[in-house]
């Protein structure tokens, strides 16, 4: 039985019949129905849950009494929940600072989420527990570290059951999008933004040439399932009947081997290190900075973050994450966005190996991730999550890209910056005479003939006060430290 959703608080997650999840300002509350209670208890008291919670890879969860729930949410929000879920258990999860979704991740992060899911499935097996779903939506990232958030995904398994029902979902939502990204050049946003449940083997089969269909890992993940599925009578439901073995050890042996083969497939579709893209060499080679200019820029950003003690930083157009790392080392929690999955993947690798608090996301601020899912309420859009969430926004060497390539008006760009930041914006003004600016205009200089330093400063003053600015000597670039004005 599925409980009705209280209209005053639409559920953010509702597909699992064992419970629903609700978002309230600053709080995440889950209602667990009676039928899910025993599975939940078995999981939360398991060794696997304790180990993962201790390592930070499982979301912290606390049971709420009716009184605590009312206290936490206020009577107005708590009452409809209590009425809709009589006898339910209520849990509160520690919120992950910035929720992100698989279509915003570089392949490296989807790979890390897949590894965590398999690690959990493996650990649960030893305690006669199992996952009932295996999707990247069960994982969020706290900085660069994956966190498993769906405590209702775990159920007690029948000892003789050797079928892993989420196998197909694991393949659809992890392995095939990774394989398509790595081998067919299909970015994750294209495979996952429009499809809630990933890529079907049949989808990928159509994208593969004859030789690729027979090659690993496509043969076992795509071709054979497609052939077998085509031969299956759609009215024959016998394949969905549970098959139990008398020997539980045999069932565990089969599942362990299955997880082992999924790990091998995961290794085969792992994103390669050292990939190149149009933007990956930008900081090093294409950029017209001398090391002197770069040092001056670094000092300017460092001083700004230090002076205002910025704690939550958004780095827009982060490239390989040099300034994100600078902010993270200064103690800030950073969200770094760039439209190129290759550079975002590189930021993740560096942040993960250096244990820096950086969440790197593939987001183009000129075309931010939309809200998705049922009623557009399951996964919020990027701006909805980001608005007012940062006390400093870095817009270094990015505004001219938005002006020229995306044709966004300057006033609009600064208005958005003022919505995103509660305090500071560190911006780099690039004059139309700059060589990079001209490279982007490609003969359309006339569109920007009215832009100059004075025009830029006037546009800034609509939302910000200019705390200070500094010319990068010998260039047509100027750095600005902007602070939101009281009237803005």
């Amino acid at each position: 039985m599925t409980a009705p959703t209280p209209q005053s608080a639409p559920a953010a997650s509702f597909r699992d019949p064992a419970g629903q999840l609700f978002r309230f300002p600053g709080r995440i509350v889950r209602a667990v129905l009676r039928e899910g209670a025993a599975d939940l208890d078995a999981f939360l008291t398991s060794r696997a849950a304790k180990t993962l919670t201790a390592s930070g890879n499982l979301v912290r969860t606390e049971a709420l009494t009716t009184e605590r729930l009312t206290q936490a949410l206020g009577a107005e929000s708590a009452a409809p929940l209590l009425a809709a879920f009589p006898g339910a258990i209520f849990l509160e999860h520690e919120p992950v600072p910035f929720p992100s979704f698989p279509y915003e991740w570089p392949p490296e992060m989807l790979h890390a989420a897949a590894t965590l899911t398999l690690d959990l499935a493996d650990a649960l097996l030893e305690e006669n527990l199992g996952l009932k779903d295996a999707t990247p939506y069960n994982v969020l990232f706290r900085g660069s570290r994956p966190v498993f958030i769906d405590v209702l995904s775990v159920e007690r398994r029948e000892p003789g059951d050797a079928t892993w029902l989420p196998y197909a979902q694991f393949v659809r939502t992890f392995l095939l999008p990774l394989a398509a990204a790595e081998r067919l050049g299909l970015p994750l946003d294209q495979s996952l933004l429009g499809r809630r449940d990933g890529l079907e083997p049949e989808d990928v089969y159509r994208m593969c040439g004859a030789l690729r269909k027979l090659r690993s890992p496509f043969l076992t993940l795509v071709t054979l399932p497609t052939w077998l599925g085509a031969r299956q009578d759609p009215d024959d439901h016998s394949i969905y009947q549970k098959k139990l073995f008398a020997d539980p050890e045999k069932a565990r042996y089969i599942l362990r081997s299955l997880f082992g083969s999924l790990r091998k497939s995961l290794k085969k579709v792992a994103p390669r290190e050292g990939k190149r893209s149009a933007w990956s060499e930008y900081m090093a080679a294409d950029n017209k900075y001398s090391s002197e200019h770069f040092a001056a820029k670094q000092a300017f950003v460092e001083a700004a973050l230090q002076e205002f003690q910025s704690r939550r930083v958004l780095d827009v157009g982060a490239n390989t994450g040099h300034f994100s790392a600078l902010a993270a080392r200064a103690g800030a929690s950073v969200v770094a966005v760039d439209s190129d999955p290759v550079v975002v993947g590189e930021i993740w690798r560096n942040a993960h190996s250096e244990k820096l608090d950086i969440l790197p996301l593939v987001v183009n601020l000129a075309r931010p991730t939309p809200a998705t899912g049922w009623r557009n309420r399951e996964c919020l859009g990027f701006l909805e999550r980001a608005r007012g969430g940062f006390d400093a926004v870095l817009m270094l060497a990015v505004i001219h890209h938005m002006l020229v390539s995306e044709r966004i008006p300057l006033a609009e760009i600064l208005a958005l910056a003022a919505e995103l930041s509660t305090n500071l914006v560190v911006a780099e003004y690039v004059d139309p005479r700059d060589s990079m600016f001209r490279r982007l205009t490609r003969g359309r200089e006339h569109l920007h003939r009215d832009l100059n330093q004075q025009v830029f400063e006037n546009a800034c003053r609509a939302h910000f006060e200019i705390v200070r600015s500094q010319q990068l000597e010998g260039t047509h670039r100027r750095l600005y430290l902007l602070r939101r004005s009281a009237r803005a």
Partner: protein
Amino acid sequence: MGVVRCMWCAALAVVLVLLTEPRAYAYTDPGSGALLWQALVAAFIGAGFYFRKFLFHLSPKKKIEKDEQ
């Protein structure tokens, strides 16, 4: 000896499969081709499981232990 035991186990497994009331818990789509492929792989690995047991029973170490008993 090991082979006979394995055959009994296999026969018991088949009977249990036939007698078990089918119950499906998943709310996620288990697919069709992928599920069939998993069943084939499971059958293959399952055979390996008995083969492994069989090898274990025939292993010299096991024989020595039995002789000692």
